[in-house]
């Protein structure tokens, strides 16, 4: 009897301990699952996936980022914002933490957030890292469609732009400095900022500002060198010539590992193109800038002239890789031919980015009413943009020797020798100079940057030139209204199949089974 009782106690204790251990294991596994998880998007159009670029930015994080939705759940943007921020958190659970604060229900938490980040309004998304933060207003997160207002309908969500803004905000927080872009002035260039009805880059400036670029205008007339810490120099369709000293300044900058973006544009005056001295200068870098206007009869669009072209193919290059894969078109208007020169040096890596169809040509006499390819003109496919890169020559071993400290003891000598050996083995790669030239400026200016995928081409160009290949313009997600377009007979058919046929089959099967069992 005592033995039986003892046995029951032992078995009961063993059982209890087992249950406790299993409960602990259950809690541990779920805790780990809560901290480390992943989300998979099974939709056809990857509606709930971060773009590859956002994922790259997030994957490279080395500091904690806090994403806070400070919005009422009743807001139309709450759900897409919550879904998006959850995707960010899932992409890097180690460094990204998402929080949701309802300004109405969580007043205490709301007030703490307002005080901590010096925010004066609700319905925002806060992207914070340490003491720094960026605040994104609800109004900037999306575009709405108000066309239904006349029928008494409310605004419908047309495009959600949260990912672009949040990734940009994260970039701003983690990058030590903004890439500095200088736009040259003094030669009739297309200005950075608009006004007075002039063509300008104000839209590009805003879009690139979202990617944390900094812009300045820079007069080359009296400059002796390109300012230090410049990441990119842009020459935007000059209409008057550069002095040789200015071109020499560009050469020294580029040959020292600098980055330049040059827009050439047919002038539309009696002189077909304005040379500005750049064509000859570009020839030194393997770029042939035609004195022509590219005409492509195959890519003419309604209400547009022969000078409007949609490139038929893209080169193999990071700038246009995404455009090529997604089969997205860009639109250029009155472009010069910009090609790889026949005598380009082998040290230069030159890629023709955009090419017309084979029926195009570079017209040197647009006044000619016949408008057909002539002798001496460039025949299609004609390139209208190129990218050039080359390794910059750096100092040799004498530089290393100059840096070695004088050895004092035998031990120090060995250490220095070893370190010199290591330096030689781990010598950093020589800097790379990059140059992109386009034969048109309108596609990047306010006139046409928002046409087709021009803005993407512009963003990709800038990001490649400053070596931020992991970024492209992350397009806003268009929200498609899901509707079913069913006729009345179709609807009735569906009703019949779902409510009568399927349950009917179940009833018949059940009755059959019942009858068989009775037998």
């Amino acid at each position, binding site marked *: 009897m005592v033995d039986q009782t003892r046995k029951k106690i032992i078995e009961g204790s063993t059982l209890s301990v087992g*249950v406790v251990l*299993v409960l602990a294991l259950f809690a541990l596994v779920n805790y780990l699952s809560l901290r480390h998880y992943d*989300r998979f998007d099974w939709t*056809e159009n990857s509606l709930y996936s971060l773009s590859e670029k956002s994922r790259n930015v997030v994957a490279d994080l080395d500091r904690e980022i806090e994403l806070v939705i400070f919005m009422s759940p009743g807001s139309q943007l709450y759900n897409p914002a919550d*879904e998006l921020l959850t995707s960010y958190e899932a992409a890097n659970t180690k460094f990204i933490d998402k929080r949701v604060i309802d300004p109405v229900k969580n007043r205490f938490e709301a007030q703490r957030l307002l005080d901590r980040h010096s925010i004066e309004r609700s319905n925002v998304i806060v992207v914070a890292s340490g003491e720094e933060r960026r605040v994104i207003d609800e109004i900037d997160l999306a575009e709405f469609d108000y066309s239904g207002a006349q029928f008494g309908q409310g605004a419908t969500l047309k495009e959600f732009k949260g990912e672009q803004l949040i990734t940009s905000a994260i970039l701003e927080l983690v990058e030590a400095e903004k890439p500095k872009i200088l736009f040259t002035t003094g030669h009739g260039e297309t200005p950075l900022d608009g006004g007075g009805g002039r063509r300008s880059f104000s839209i590009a400036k805003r879009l690139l500002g979202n990617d944390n670029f900094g812009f300045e205008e820079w007069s080359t007339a009296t400059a002796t060198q390109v300012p230090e810490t410049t990441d990119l120099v842009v020459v935007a369709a000059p209409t008057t010539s550069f002095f040789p000293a200015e071109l020499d300044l560009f050469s020294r900058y580029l040959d020292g590992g600098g980055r330049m973006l040059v827009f050439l544009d047919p002038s539309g005056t009696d002189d077909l193109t304005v040379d500005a001295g750049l064509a000859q200068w570009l020839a030194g870098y393997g770029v042939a800038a035609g004195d022509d206007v590219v005409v492509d009869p195959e890519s003419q669009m309604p209400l547009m002239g022969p000078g409007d072209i949609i490139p038929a193919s893209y080169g193999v290059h990071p700038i246009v890789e995404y455009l090529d894969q997604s089969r997205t078109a860009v639109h250029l208007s009155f472009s010069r031919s910009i090609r790889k020169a026949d005598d380009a040096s082998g040290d230069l890596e030159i890629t023709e980015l955009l090419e017309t169809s084979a029926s195009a040509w570079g017209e040197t006499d647009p006044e000619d009413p016949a408008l057909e390819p002539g002798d001496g003109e460039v025949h299609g496919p004609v390139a209208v943009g190129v990218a050039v890169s080359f390794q910059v020559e750096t100092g040799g071993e004498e530089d290393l020797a100059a840096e070695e400290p004088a050895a004092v003891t035998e031990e120090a000598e060995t250490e220095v020798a070893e370190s010199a050996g290591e330096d030689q083995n781990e010598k950093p790669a020589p800097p790379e100079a990059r140059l992109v030239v386009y034969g048109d400026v309108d596609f990047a200016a306010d006139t046409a940057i928002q046409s087709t995928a021009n803005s993407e081409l512009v963003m990709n160009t800038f990001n490649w030139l400053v070596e931020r290949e992991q970024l492209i313009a992350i397009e806003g997600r268009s929200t498609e209204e899901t509707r079913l377009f069913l006729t009345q007979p179709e609807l009735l058919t569906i009703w019949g199949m779902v409510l009568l046929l*399927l349950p009917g089959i179940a009833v018949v099967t*059940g009755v059959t089974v019942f009858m068989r069992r009775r037998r």
Partner: protein
Amino acid sequence: MNGLLATFERELRAYFFSSLAYVVLTFFLLANGIGFLIVVTYLSNPQGGAGFTPFEFFFSGFFFWILVLISPPILTMRLISEERKSGTIETLMTSPVSEVQVVLGKYFAALALYVFLWLPTVLYAVILEQHSDVDWGPILSGYLGTLGIGAMFLAIGVFGSSFTKNQIVAAIATFAILMFLFTFAFFEGLVTSETTKDVIGYVNLLQHMEDFGKGVVDTRRLVYYATTAALFLFLSCRALEAKKWR
């Protein structure tokens, strides 16, 4: 393994050779059908709203949750309690079949019936595809979520059934536990503590199915379902084992 298979076959035969499965299936299809058709009719109306797919609502609507909360207690209430009431549990426990094999065999039979109930609803998507574009990704993820939640609920049902001889009590106990888990969804907005909110969000079944219905498969959900099912099946085995000593 043989014991598991034998138990599984026996239970499956008991389900499908009785009219109960087909009665449940008929009402299941009627309820699901009504829910599905309400959404389809709404989205077909040009004056109606839009913005979600039929299956987003199908996997998170009123009829879905009614069926998911009610069917597991019904499917599992007799699994062990009936054997205990009729006295066959003692025979079963003395046979060369372990408690684990018995529990798992019965559990998988209930799971098979659960899948059998939901399987015909895939035809809704097939029917709809004849008249409209259908993205199968969210549909498959929706069914994955339905299966995961069902697997968890059925394990809880087996546990409920292992504690009593009375099927009704087993069903009510199971339903009570399921409702307890389900109502966590309504607490998330009421708490202010970040940790508590995270925990409640982790078990918020409404949010889970909203994600699955949209096409988002989150590993947290799958881990939660698998571990909870495993926990309750373990507890069921321990409950049966404890009965042996009495």
